[in-house]
């Protein structure tokens, strides 16, 4: 079994000099990062820095303007549609919004990727689905439609679906948002267990510093289109950077701006009806 320490150089996702813009706004401006096999790598950063965008780039849904993203040595942006889909079968992604199929119930949502990609008999699919639902504590909710779920429940169903095909890598976009303390604890454990017991590779995008630090092997902190710091949670905790200290401790004052970039407040108020 793979251990996180045996293959320190085994990089699953390799991002080099990534540049990406939305309209005229630069989201990434030269980002380098490595996601190592068997580890939980956390991506943190203020809201709107492009964490979700980064996951979409890794999944090949967006193309970088410059730079490369390699997943298992394959340049994602240059794969043919068929090869890209082959690769995606081995990547699970938990969307920030859940992205459940609204015309299918919980059970069928989790069964969906299994039915699409395998020819397993229905009885085996049932066992698999119930196993995954049990893991997120929603076996009893299998008959509900997505519209009948709370936000936190929907995300857990989406998590069960993301792991349904036992992928080699899972990307979690804010798995903890909207969870009560108990399910949060369960999810933290679940991600940790999935990763370290099955030697999956995980990318966790999250704002929850404490929970994420508890399970992450490595953390990248993004801001303003760059990686501002990276390291193990302990190393980041001792970081000299005021920026990282402010972010990790959630202090309102410091170098991290809370506001989306804007002209000075006073000026804006005095500008009257000019927009």
């Amino acid at each position, binding site marked *: 079994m793979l251990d996180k320490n045996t293959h320190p150089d085994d990089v699953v996702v390799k991002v080099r000099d990534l540049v990406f813009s939305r309209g005229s706004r630069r989201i990434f401006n030269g980002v380098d990062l490595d996601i190592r096999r068997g580890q939980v790598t956390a991506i943190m950063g203020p809201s709107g820095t492009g964490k979700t965008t980064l996951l*979409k780039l890794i*999944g090949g*849904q967006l193309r970088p303007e410059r730079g490369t993203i390699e997943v298992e040595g394959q340049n994602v942006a240059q794969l043919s*549609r068929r090869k890209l*889909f*082959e690769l*995606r*079968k081995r*990547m699970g*992604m938990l*969307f920030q*919004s859940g*992205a*459940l*199929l*609204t015309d299918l119930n919980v059970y069928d949502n989790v069964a*969906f*990727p299994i039915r*699409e*990609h395998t020819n397993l008999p229905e009885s085996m699919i049932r066992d698999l689905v119930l196993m995954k639902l049990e893991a997120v504590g929603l076996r009893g909710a299998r008959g509900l439609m997505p519209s009948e779920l709370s936000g936190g429940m929907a995300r857990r169903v989406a998590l069960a*679906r993301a792991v349904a*095909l036992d992928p080699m890598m899972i990307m979690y976009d804010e798995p903890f948002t909207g969870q009560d303390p108990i399910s949060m604890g369960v999810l933290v454990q679940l991600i940790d267990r999935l990763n370290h017991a099955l030697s999956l590779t995980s990318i966790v995008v999250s704002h929850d510093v404490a929970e994420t630090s508890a399970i992450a092997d490595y953390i990248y902190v993004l801001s303003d289109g760059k990686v501002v710091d990276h390291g193990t949670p302990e190393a980041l905790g001792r970081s000299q950077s005021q920026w990282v200290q402010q972010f990790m401790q959630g202090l309102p004052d410091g170098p991290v701006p809370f506001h989306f970039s804007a002209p000075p407040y006073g000026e804006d108020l005095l500008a009257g009806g000019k927009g």
Partner: protein
Amino acid sequence: MMDALAKLGRGALDFFERLGRGHLFLMYVLAGSPPLLLRLRLWTQQMYSVGVLSLLIVAVAGLFVGMVLGLQGYNTLVDFGSEESLGVMVALSLVQELGPVLAAVLFAARAGTSLTAEIGLMKTTEQLSGMEMMAVDPLQRVIAPRFWASFVSVPLLAAIFSAVGVFGGYFVGVGLLGVDDGAFWSQIQSRVDFHEDVMNGVIKSVVFGFVAAWIALFEGYDAVPTSEGVARATTRTVVHTSIAVLGLDFVLTALMFD
């Protein structure tokens, strides 16, 4: 002045870009269709929701249109003493023109709009992206079955429209206005030519079905992923389908008269 020109230029560019996207979309849908043959259930489900559920509105509309044709036709024909030709007149109008055109327009209003809204909302709620990340191609899994179901439904609906319409004309002409029963049917039988008349109508409705399916699905797939975007796309489905169908009807009719 320059502003207006620039605006015109941008509008034209947007238009052609969209047209290009529309054709690419169609190509991907057609290329992604063969696997559907192994999963006919996906297609039959859609046949039900786009085809069967449009049946009632098409049949009712066909009946009324046939009845109006019966009335109008009788009033014109009776002046020339040729009211026995009422059946032919009603049947030809329906089979060649009104059946294909109105069935396609009604289809756009009844089923096309709901397809656009459904696909647009799936896009808005990231369900399509979600499928892509699960390595399921939404063009194959979601769009293609709906495309073929619509494509097959429109000609069938047009046929039903025409058939019900002929009965509507019969009911008014023979039942209410006293046209001879035998003459009504025998004239239809002897003067409506299968190859010339019926097939022309079928060709039209096949073309319209293709266009109606394409527009409804592309509008949904290309919708701006917001509530407003989906609302506009839904409106565009009806407007664009109606205009495309009427325009193509003229072109096809002109070609067929050759």
